[in-house]
């Protein structure tokens, strides 16, 4: 077994205690309470029966060194307990979830930032006039609960047959709905930055476009009372000339179709003609003239 000494005996005084110094080159990660020992491990020690003892001794040294460095850290006393303040961990440990994104400020938060309004912490308990004790500001058994009033004083001008108790309930429901609506508005992250005028113009244009998107181009759409008159769009209607025409009127339909046919054939023959003209081989003028006349005839 390799002899392992925990450092040299420095104490000049006759100390009956075993020294605690460790003279070893070790790397520490005090943030994680870790010590890294890079020294070479002798294979022979691990193969023998004294393997566990060797490991124990090795670890004892290393942990002693770690304790020595932890005891060397700055300490604070908290609640009669001595705490050592650890530095930042060196070994990087990955997070379990990504870094949270900063959500955009809500409408109120933006306003408060502009005005410089700061949050003030309110106490949970408030003095309740009815019972004369302190009760929670909100929630179960709250102080100054309006809904628990057994008597509601109506002002002089109020209608005596109105349901005042019901009104309180209705108001609360209204407030809850409003709150929910405002929360939804805050949750949707789209903050429209366009000025009001532009928004109005964009909306007007959208109305016009949607109107025209029907088959009848908005002719039979139900109009609102105050809706401005929109210029009526007219659909393009294909007019078909008669195929069975008297000889005089035959020209139009015929000429249209002829023109189309000419175009089609020309598009087939044009590359051939081009090829003939540009090709290195000479072509008989007769053949070429034939081709061209063919196109012209048709």
């Amino acid at each position, binding site marked *: 077994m390799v002899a392992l000494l925990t450092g040299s005996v420095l*104490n000049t*005084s006759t*100390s009956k*205690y*075993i*020294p*605690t110094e460790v003279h070893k080159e070790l790397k520490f990660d005090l*943030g*994680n*309470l*870790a*010590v*890294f*020992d*890079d*020294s*070479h*491990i002798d*294979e022979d020690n*691990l193969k023998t029966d004294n393997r*566990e003892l060797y*490991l*124990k001794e*090795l*670890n*004892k040294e*290393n*942990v*002693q060194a*770690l*304790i*020595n460095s*932890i*005891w060397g850290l700055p*300490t*604070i006393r*908290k609640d009669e*307990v*001595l*705490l*050592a*303040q*650890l530095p*930042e*961990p060196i*070994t*990087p*440990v*990955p*997070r*379990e*979830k*990504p*870094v*949270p994104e900063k959500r955009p400020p809500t409408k109120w938060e933006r306003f408060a930032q502009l005005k410089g309004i700061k949050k003030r912490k309110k106490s949970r308990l408030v003095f309740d006039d009815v019972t004369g004790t302190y009760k929670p500001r909100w929630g179960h058994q709250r102080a100054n609960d309006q809904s628990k009033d057994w008597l509601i004083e109506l002002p002089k001008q109020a209608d005596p047959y109105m349901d005042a108790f019901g009104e309180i309930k209705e108001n609360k429901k209204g407030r809850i709905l409003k709150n929910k609506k405002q929360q939804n508005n805050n949750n949707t992250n789209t903050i429209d930055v366009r000025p009001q005028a532009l928004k109005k113009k964009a909306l007007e244009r959208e109305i016009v476009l949607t109107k025209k998107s029907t088959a009848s181009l908005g002719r039979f759409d139900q109009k609102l009372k105050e809706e401005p008159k929109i210029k009526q769009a007219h659909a393009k209607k294909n007019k078909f000339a008669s195929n069975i025409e008297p000889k005089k009127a035959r020209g139009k339909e015929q000429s249209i179709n002829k023109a189309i046919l000419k175009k089609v054939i020309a598009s087939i023959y044009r590359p051939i003609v081009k090829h003939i003209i540009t090709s290195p081989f000479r072509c008989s003028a007769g053949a070429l003239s034939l081709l061209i006349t063919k196109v012209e005839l048709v």
Partner: protein
Amino acid sequence: MVVIQRVVKATTRKGKKVLIKKEPQVNEGPKRALFLQGRRSSDKLRRLTKDLFDIKKPDAQLLNKKNDITVFEDATPVERFCRKFETPLFVMSSHSKKRPDNLVIGRMYNYSLLDMIELHVENIECMREFACQKIVLGTKPSLVFNGPTWEETEELKHLKSLFIDIFHREEVESVRLQGLEHTISFTATPEGKILIRSFNVLMKKSGTRVPRLELEEMGPRIDLTLRRSKLPSEDLMKEALRKPKELKVTKKKNISVDGLGTTHGRIHVGKQEIQKIQTRKMKGLKKTPEEIKMKRAAKRSADNNNVNKIKKQKLG
């Protein structure tokens, strides 16, 4: 692959709190570990799982049933379990003819697999076999890594990071000096084995303020060998290691601490217009009208002299 989850809205306040807890946070608490089984388990693995679970308690979840999962082929069932139990770490044990006494340790990032390493459990001796005083549940152990090979291969580097992740519980700013009771050591032998030993630390008197330590072996004795591994891609690891801005320590400028411990600060005072400083008026020191006249005359003559000098220079 990003799996689009149906947006879960809470109907009760309690449900809302649960959802808020699951959201990513700036400061994360201790990582929970999930212990599960593969197609078949062996006696060794069962004892090992029980011991590791005992060490990792209360941040651990133990599943007893067998699962038809092969992690290296398809990790999605494990990802699903980890999402359900909110455990970014998992330890899966499986036993087959081809891979006997197999242990896969891995971790998740944002509910998807980050990395995992497969180990072969060669030998295990349970905590029960060591007759010694056990430690209190939940103590943060000190970790010892022996051997130069921990820094040599990529796999061992990641394994070291994994071990630290599993056993270090959570990041703390301060530690009770008397509370360092548990130490776990990981030794990487030259022939490729990893030996895990766990000790109970006893502090004895020494002549100095620092106590002398005695180690008593208490915990499981585990001998492992490396098998396969799935290491994370560079950019995913970088993303996982990213620290939020809130945790970045901003150093205060112009403040220094000298050797004796006194704090020194530097204040930058702007340029001072000495002529325009408002000072106390002392009536006695006020100049009389004669004195002002004299001063004016002296100034005029001085100016004339200067002008003559410049004229002389120009001419000369």
